[in-house]
């Protein structure tokens, strides 16, 4: 142990580290550390500690804090150490403060001065230490204090200092771009630094700057390209070589920058082609760092304006990555593939087996990356398989963060590509069942809206089928224990709206189920509220249909419970339910119409339904209502009032309620003022009610001039300290009472009327359309927002594809029968699609093939549907093999064996290999191409435009 001591540790520190190392539990460790903290607290505040001792204490403090304990009592000592003259002590002080403090800490103010001084030091190490602290501890406010010195240091003779000064400037830029915006040109200048290290460091800030604003750096393309060229040609000092690669980290940074600059810019990209091509050739793919550069090249190639030759090199590199045994390289390969398929979708298909291998891999990171790739290449043809896989995986993991992500992706894909309504509902059910509490509540609302609005524009039967199937599945799912709250809300809502709609289930059955839900999840108020509202709807529909409503006993007891609930929301709902049940059929039908959740509710803002009542009142002598805008002379006042209101809200001490009652008292004293009542809006209903009795009598006869009234009001205003037209001495505020009289009445009817409306609106609000939802809906029902990425969105497409799938069902089943006859040993019908039963029976472990086949299924089926050959199995095999032959390059016969030999089961491989070859021959002659052309025509007829010019629909699977 003695030899490990090195440096400046004392025996004590060694013992501390040792005892912590030997601690058997966290509690024991904590005890030791707390003891240490006590010791340090005592020692550190002793006077006249030798510097060396002090330094060790600080190091021990850092150590203690690293173990997660509070060392703030010693911060001030660390700050003091930065003032020290000795370099060693000073550096330790800086190290400690950068680890201890953040830029907003109170002690920073004590350090800024020291930093300023140290930045001017002759000793470059002092400067470096200060720059380190600058990076970590200077905030927006203190930047100006050190900025001049830092800028000066950009020209420091030591490259290490220049490098750090550049980075410090970059840090300032990150913290507050405006404070250093005039110094940005310095980054460009430093790019030409003599020292390659400084140049390399400058690339970091430039990368950030270019990310923010590409266009102002286009002029640097040539410089970057020439630097990269020089680096690749080994013009840099040997010291920058790493594992025989010339300055690979600089190359990577440069490639990243070029990728940004060349994105969507043909001219800039053309400058890069040569050098990137060179690097592709020169890269040593046997070392890790070589592959890192290769990967960066692929990223660059997939980002800049496409060049066929480079894309080819990139594809080669990817296939090398994917074939590698290293998980790291596979990971990078999958990632790179995800980037490249955006440009050349066809390259994915040669790697499908590798992709499936990665999906099956025990390495979680790799699996996730592969799911990301699958997500990127989902089409309407493969959505079922991919989403099923995703859901299976989602169920298997515990990581909530990733679960949420996968769930939302499933939802997204399902909404975009759902081949059928049935499938969509089932998928959503699965997602909700297993990750219900993790998905966004909007997803649930969206699902409800979808079920309510239906898929088809005019196809009512399809919609009602959708709803019945939803109801069926929900009733089934309700049997499961412990469903997520969000899912239950959806279930309750759907059961309420459509539970009895198709007549399959009786109202008492549905209400029974709803009561069960409310009882089983009795601590979830939201679910209970949904359940009560659903019950109300069911009963309302029953009443509207004219049948007699018998409330189930459990429902009655539930209602009794809710009527006394602590939740006002539940209480209100329960009372509403009670009230609705008491109404007659006609009334119920108008407040609770069946399947009207998507109807627009017209709000009668003019309150025209009150016309009769008003007419009556006017006939009886009431004053007609004068709209505020038409009241002569009222405009200014109302303006003032508005201002006053603003004022009040800003000052916070002016409350109308305090002022007005005073006036009522006044007004009540002189009864004479009663004569001058008028219609004037008064915002205080309380006050109005108070004075109501005194005013009503005279209200009818009052026709006092509005000027008078105005004056009075001015008086009121003045009380508020606001200067108005003329001072009025009037005492009366009865004026306003009258108005209030009229207004409160209107208000009253207004609210009572909106009561019923509100219930609707609140229901409606639950499925309110937010922008996100609209976007989702748009992608679901046509106008897709993601067209370029996923051209196959939209309702029509999913319809057509579901049609195709349906169509293909018949031949599939017949084919299954056929092949079953051929190979009775074979149990799972899925595998039979292979067409060569012997292989499967020999090789039960070739899972990847099953997977592949799963991915292929939809289209192969379609293809075989069109293919009227005698035995389905025979037609099937060429289709699968067609996948290999359809790839553009001629290497594929060879590639087949390569890919296949990558499989774990050698004997099977051989066999397959044999069959492959024969079948390749078959398929090249076979009707495959013609088929797919026909199918393409069919697809076009249905209004779908394939994304690629190539009509072969296998492309849609993995490309």
């Amino acid at each position: 142990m003695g030899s490990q001591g090195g440096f400046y540790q004392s025996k004590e520190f060694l013992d501390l580290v040792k005892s912590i190392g030997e601690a058997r539990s966290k509690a024991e460790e904590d005890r030791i550390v707390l003891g240490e903290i006590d010791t340090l607290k005592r020692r550190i505040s002793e006077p006249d500690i030798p510097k060396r001792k002090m330094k060790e204490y600080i190091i021990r403090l850092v150590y203690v804090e690293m173990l997660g304990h509070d060392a703030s009592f010693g911060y001030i000592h660390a700050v003091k150490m930065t003032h020290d003259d000795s370099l060693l002590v000073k550096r330790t002080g800086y190290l400690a403060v950068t680890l201890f403090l953040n830029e907003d800490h109170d002690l920073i103010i004590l350090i800024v001065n020291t930093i300023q001084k140290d930045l001017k030091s002759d000793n470059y190490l002092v400067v470096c230490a200060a720059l380190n602290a600058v990076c970590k501890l200077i905030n927006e406010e203190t930047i100006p204090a050190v900025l001049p010195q830092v800028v000066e240091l950009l020209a420091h003779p030591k490259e290490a200092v220049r490098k750090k000064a550049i980075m410090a400037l970059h840090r300032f830029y990150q913290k507050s771009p405006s404070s250093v915006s005039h110094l940005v040109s310095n980054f460009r200048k430093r790019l030409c630094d003599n020292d390659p290290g400084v140049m390399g460091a400058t690339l970091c800030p430039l990368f950030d700057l270019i990310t923010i604003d590409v266009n102002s750096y286009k002029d640097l393309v040539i410089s970057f390209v020439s630097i990269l060229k020089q680096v690749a040609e080994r013009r840099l000092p040997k010291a920058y070589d790493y594992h025989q690669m010339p300055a690979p980290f600089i190359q990577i940074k440069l490639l990243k920058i070029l990728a940004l600059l060349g994105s969507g810019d043909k001219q800039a990209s053309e400058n890069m082609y040569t050098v990137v091509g060179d690097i592709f050739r020169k890269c040593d793919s046997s070392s890790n760092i070589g592959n890192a550069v290769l990967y960066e090249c692929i990223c660059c190639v997939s980002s800049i304006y496409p060049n066929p030759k480079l894309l080819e090199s990139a594809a080669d590199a990817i296939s090398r990555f994917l074939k590698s045994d290293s998980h790291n390289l596979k990971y990078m390969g999958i990632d790179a593939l995800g980037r490249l398929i955006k440009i050349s979708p066809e390259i994915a298909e040669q790697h499908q087996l590798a992709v499936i291998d990665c999906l099956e891999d025990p390495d979680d990171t790799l699996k996730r990356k592969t799911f990301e790739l699958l997500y990127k290449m989902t089409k309407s043809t493969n959505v079922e398989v991919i989403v099923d896989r995703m859901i299976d995986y989602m169920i298997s993991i515990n990581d909530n963060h990733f679960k949420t992500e996968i769930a939302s992706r499933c939802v997204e894909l399902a909404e975009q590509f759902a081949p059928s309504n049935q499938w969509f509902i089932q998928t959503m059910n699965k997602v909700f069942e297993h990750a219900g509490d993790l998905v966004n509540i909007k997803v649930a609302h969206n699902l409800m809206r979808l079920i309510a609005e239906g898929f088809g524009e005019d196809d009512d039967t399809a919609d009602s089928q959708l709803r019945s199937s939803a109801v069926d599945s929900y009733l089934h799912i309700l049997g499961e224990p412990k469903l997520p709250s969000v899912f239950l809300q959806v279930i309750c809502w759907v059961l309420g709206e459509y539970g009895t709609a198709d007549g399959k289930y009786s109202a008492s059955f549905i209400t029974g189920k709803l009561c069960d839900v409310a009882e089983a999840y009795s601590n979830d108020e939201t679910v209970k509220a949904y359940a009560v509202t659903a019950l109300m709807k069911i009963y309302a529909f029953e009443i509207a249909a004219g049948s007699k409503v018998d409330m189930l006993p459990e429902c009655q007891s539930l209602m009794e419970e809710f009527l006394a609930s602590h939740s006002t929301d539940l209480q209100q709902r329960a009372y509403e339910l009670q009230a609705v049940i008491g109404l007659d059929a006609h009334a119920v039908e108008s407040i609770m119409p069946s399947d009207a959740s998507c109807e627009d509710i017209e709000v009668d803002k003019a309150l025209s339904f009150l016309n009769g009542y008003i007419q009556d009142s006017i006939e009886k002598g009431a004053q007609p209502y004068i709209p505020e805008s038409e009241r002569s002379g009222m405009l200014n006042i109302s303006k003032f009032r508005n201002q006053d209101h603003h004022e009040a809200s800003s000052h916070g001490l002016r409350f109308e309620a305090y002022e007005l009652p005073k006036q009522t008292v006044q007004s009540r004293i002189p009864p004479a003022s009663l004569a001058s009542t008028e219609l004037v809006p008064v915002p205080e209903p309380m006050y109005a009610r108070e004075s109501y009795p005194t005013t009503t009598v005279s209200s009818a006869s009052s026709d006092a001039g509005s000027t008078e009234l105005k004056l009075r009001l001015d008086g009121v205003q003045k009380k508020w300290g606001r200067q108005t037209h003329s001072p009025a001495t009037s005492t009366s505020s009865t004026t306003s009472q009258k108005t209030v009289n009229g207004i409160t009445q209107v208000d009253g009817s207004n609210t009572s009327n909106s009561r019923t409306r509100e219930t609707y609106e609140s229901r409606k609000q639950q499925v309110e359309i937010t922008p996100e939802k609209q976007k989702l809906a748009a992608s679901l029902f046509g106008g897709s927002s993601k067209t370029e990425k996923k051209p196959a969105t939209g309702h029509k497409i999913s319809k057509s594809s579901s049609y195709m799938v349906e169509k293909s069902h018949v031949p599939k089943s017949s084919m299954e029968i056929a092949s079953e006859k051929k190979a009775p040993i074979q149990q799972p019908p899925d595998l039979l699609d292979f067409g060569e039963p012997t292989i499967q029976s020999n090789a039960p472990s070739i899972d990847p093939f099953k997977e592949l086949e799963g991915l292929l299924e939809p289209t192969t089926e379609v293809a075989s549907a069109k293919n009227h050959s005698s035995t389905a199995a025979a037609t099937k095999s060429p289709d699968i093999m067609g996948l290999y032959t359809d790839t553009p390059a001629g290497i594929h016969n060879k590639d087949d064996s390569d890919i296949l030999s990558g499989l774990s089961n050698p004997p099977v491989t051989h066999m397959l290999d044999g069959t492959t070859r024969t079948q390749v021959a078959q398929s090249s002659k076979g009707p495959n191409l013609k088929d797919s052309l026909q199918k393409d025509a069919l697809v076009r007829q249905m209004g779908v435009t394939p994304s690629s010019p190539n009509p072969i629909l296998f492309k849609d699977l993995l490309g």
Partner: protein
Amino acid sequence: MIKAVMVMNTQGKTRLAKFYEYLPVEKQQELIRGVFAVLCSRAENVSNFIDAESIFGLDSRLVYKHFATLYFVFVFDSSENELAVLDLIQVFVETLDRCFKNVCELDVVFNYSKVHTILDVMIFGGQVVETSSSEIMKAVEEISKLEAASNSIALIPKSASGWRSR
């Protein structure tokens, strides 16, 4: 940029933790624990990359490498290349090895501030500034030489080779 560098042993004891964005101590500990929990669950022969978004928030990846009893962990965002960071860890460890001759866990524990010095030469404010092991060594040696010279009371051997031989 690089968000954090951590070194921990296979029992989960932190040996070095450096965060390039300020985080309160409790948060740091929480993250370290989170990282260790994930590292523990990783099998042998799997990739060195972990999607760290569930621990560190959006846009964060994690690369780790296992040497003897230590995990070296770098957390960074999408502006870095995973394979390159893996090599950065390699550079870091190679430098430590040059510095301490057959570096082992105890070297890292006892020469805590030295390890920080090395890291500070390599990574500055979250950006990788030096990737050549020999350059790092040169800088570190120079620092210790000057430190020794400026510190009259220090009883330190004057060259890197003598650091451990007291």
